[in-house]
């Protein structure tokens, strides 16, 4: 076939009045050729998803509307297509996979029936032929035992398997264009690697054009043929993957690429300060069941022994369900450990009651993942910061004076103390959370995926801040993350967790250069863009 499958020309989508800018996307032009993967990269709010949804005709009605330009799908303008024509095009000529495979699939319909539905709507095949076709496509996305999966409900499958079902559903009619909107963001790295491999295989075999939306340059390096970089609704740079990643021209692209942490750990001095935190055979067992249910036990953490010195950062790395957050929450005593000890300040706090624990709350503070939920939306950020010190008898004036100092320390204006959380961006809120933690003058700071929800550029700044405060206050930092790149940047030592057990533990450099455990090695192999040296450009 000649000519591009998808051509977007000068697309402009208006935002409703009162938004932070006039148009969600403005004058966006790019194209997707057959058999090509085009990655649209940008941070949150760059308009990449709006672009993808415009192509599918899925913009929220009454809120967003394409006000200019055209979107040509195999030469046909979808912006002017009738709703019934659009319905016919969706599924047959273009299809989409979404970020969250659990919510994108209907939980009360079996997986097979959901793929079958596409065929029922768009073809007049008989039931037997359809089933054959569904099983064939399920087989082609490497789902184990398609016969059995056909009758399974989405909740019975893992995240990766659900995403495969989504892909099967999208590809069953061999569309010319596949739009993938952050399809791997909600998945673990090892699953992500498999799905990326699957997408590029399917695309190669079928000659599908893929429009791949992502914020992750590692993913881009892994699969993109061409890259389109978007910022605030504009395309700032476009080119082949090699050009853009090795030799970026636009300052924004340069900034984004520079913000991607390298996978090679920095050389760090060995810390010899006193031990601030030690866990001894820490276990957490979640026991289910009650009067009527069968007893079910999940060992979220078993026999975890970790030790963090003052001034040291220990990374706990693992995929979801590995128990890394459970360990962090036990140490912060947000949950009660089932057995084992947590030694802080020469005192085992694992068994203390809430009342006995209060004096020890000062020693250990935590910064959470989601900056939008970490601050009480009804209280000014100043009130949130002074709450802790005032619980321990610091006078209001002294606490406020300290809060002002801390705001300066985390790079925010002290005058902003009277503002409410919704007036800050995600990165700023995370700074406020760090200030709140520091207000308690802790010895241990737990960062539970503290930078995972942030855009890369903001992520780099918050990481720098965390490292600064560690040095300044000689903190013992427990850094929980699923991201090896981030861990390489900030951690002195790393503990790798799998299924509640620490499988490997050592200096960051050693773990990265010479991983011992098979699971650690598989994590490294799955890290997107691991073979790609990102340009370091000024």
């Amino acid at each position, binding site marked *: 076939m000649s000519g591009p499958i998808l051509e977007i020309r000068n697309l402009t989508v208006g935002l409703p009045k*009162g*938004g*932070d800018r006039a148009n969600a996307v403005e004058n966006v032009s790019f194209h997707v050729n057959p058999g090509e993967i085009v990655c649209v990269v940008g941070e949150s709010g760059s308009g990449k998803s709006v672009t993808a949804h415009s192509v599918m005709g899925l913009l929220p009605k009454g809120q967003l509307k394409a006000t200019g330009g055209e979107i040509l799908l195999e030469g046909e303008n979808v912006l002017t297509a009738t709703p019934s024509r659009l319905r016919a095009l969706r599924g047959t000529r273009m299809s989409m996979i979404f970020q969250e495979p659990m919510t994108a699939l209907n939980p009360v319909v079996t997986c097979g029936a959901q793929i079958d539905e596409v065929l029922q709507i768009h073809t007049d095949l008989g039931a037997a032929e359809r089933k054959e076709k569904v099983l064939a496509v399920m087989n082609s996305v490497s789902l184990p035992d398609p016969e059995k999966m056909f009758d399974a409900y989405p909740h019975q499958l893992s995240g990766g398997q659900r995403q495969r079902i989504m892909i099967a559903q999208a590809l069953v009619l061999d569309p010319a264009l596949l739009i993938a909107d952050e399809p791997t963001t909600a998945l673990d790295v090892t699953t992500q690697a498999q799905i990326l491999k699957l997408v590029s295989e399917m695309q190669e075999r079928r000659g599908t054009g893929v429009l791949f939306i992502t914020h992750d340059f590692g993913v881009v390096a892994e699969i993109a043929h061409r890259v389109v970089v978007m910022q605030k609704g504009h395309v700032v740079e476009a080119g082949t993957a090699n050009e853009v990643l090795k030799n970026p021209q636009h300052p924004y692209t340069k900034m984004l690429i520079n913000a991607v942490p390298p996978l090679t750990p920095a050389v760090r001095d060995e810390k010899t300060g006193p031990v601030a935190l030690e866990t001894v055979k820490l276990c957490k067992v979640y026991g289910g069941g*009650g009067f009527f249910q069968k007893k079910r036990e999940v060992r979220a953490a078993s026999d975890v022994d970790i030790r963090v010195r003052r001034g040291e950062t220990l990374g706990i790395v693992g995929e979801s369900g590995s128990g890394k957050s459970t360990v962090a929450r036990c140490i*912060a*005593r*947000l949950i009660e450990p089932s057995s084992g000890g947590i030694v802080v300040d020469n005192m085992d706090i694992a068994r203390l009651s*809430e009342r006995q624990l*209060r*004096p020890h*709350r*000062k020693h*250990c*503070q*935590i910064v*959470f*993942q*989601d900056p939008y*939920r*970490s*601050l*009480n*939306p*009804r*209280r000014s950020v100043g009130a*949130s910061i002074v*709450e*802790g010190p005032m*619980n*321990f008898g610091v006078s209001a004036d002294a606490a406020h004076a300290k809060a002002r100092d801390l705001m*300066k*320390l985390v*790079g*925010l*204006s*002290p*005058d*902003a103390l009277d*503002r409410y959380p*919704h*007036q*800050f*961006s995600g*990165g*700023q809120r995370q*700074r406020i*959370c760090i200030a*709140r933690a520091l207000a*308690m003058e802790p010895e241990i700071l737990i960062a539970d995926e503290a930078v995972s929800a942030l855009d890369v550029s*903001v992520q780099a*700044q918050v990481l720098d801040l965390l490292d600064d405060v560690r040095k300044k206050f000689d903190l013992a930092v427990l850094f929980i993350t699923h991201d090896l790149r981030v861990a390489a940047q900030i951690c002195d030592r790393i503990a790798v967790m799998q299924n509640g057990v620490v499988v490997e533990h050592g200096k960051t450099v050693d773990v990265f250069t010479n991983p011992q455990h098979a699971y650690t090695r598989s994590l490294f192999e799955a890290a997107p863009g691991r073979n790609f040296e990102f340009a370091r450009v000024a």
Partner: protein
Amino acid sequence: MTAPATTTPLADAADTPAPAKPTVWRKLFRNPAVLTGLAIVLVMVFIGLIAPLIATSDPSAINPAARNRLPMAESSMRADDGTRITVKHWMGTDTLGRDVFSRVVYGARVSIFIGVAVAAISIGVGLVVGLLAGYFRWLDSVIMRIMDGLMAIPAILLAIAVVSLSRAGLLSVIIAIVVPEVPRVVRLVRAVVLSVREEPYVEAARVSGTPTLKLLIRHVLPNTVAPLIVQGTFICASAILVEAILSFLGIGIPPEIPTWGNIMAEGRQLFRVFPHNILYPGIFLALTVLAVNMLGDGLRDTLDPKMEKRG
């Protein structure tokens, strides 16, 4: 902007004020359901308050000479000082010759008082119990089983029991309506608390050593306010209805105090001939319940963030 030199460019974004959001109050006053409902409720409250001024005669004064008069009929009676006065019966009179208009106007007092009292008491009790059940896991199953038990008691049976144990009166009626209503509030509050207690900001407050009581009041309680205001209006409406039902059945407020329910009860025998005895209190009752429900619906649309998107 007078930010210190250490401020990164990041901080600037926060200095531009966020786009002005229409406040909750402004949104409320733009909602026609809220406005209509509120207006009718206020009129009813006003009528109840000034009942002694607008009532044309004593609501319990019996005038055997003027029984079963039709609306707009007039009758004359001797006043205390011996002069004769003429009274116009806007809504006619009942079988004992009492002025229905005056009785309906006084009836507003009882209905609205009961509605408000039941809503306030059940929310007050339900809030405390719900907070405890939601926050303290070990109390949860005990409290919730008791609540399940309470929920199984029908208001009317309970009213009969309370009345036979003590005597008919305001207090008995309020108790009979509050008891089955409390578990509903407890469930609502508990559900909110269960989700809010997992919020990182609540956990952050725990880690900062905030005492439990302070934590509940400062961080958890405010989240229950909006759903409780909404639930409160619905409780109020249903309490007004249940009181009318109880009084109609004769197990509510004793007949010497006029309420919409017992006015209707007394008009029942002659309903075919003189429908006004039931019609007028019925209109007031329906209008009030409708208004309170409209108010509740409007409040829910405005206060519940999940409903906002549909707008």
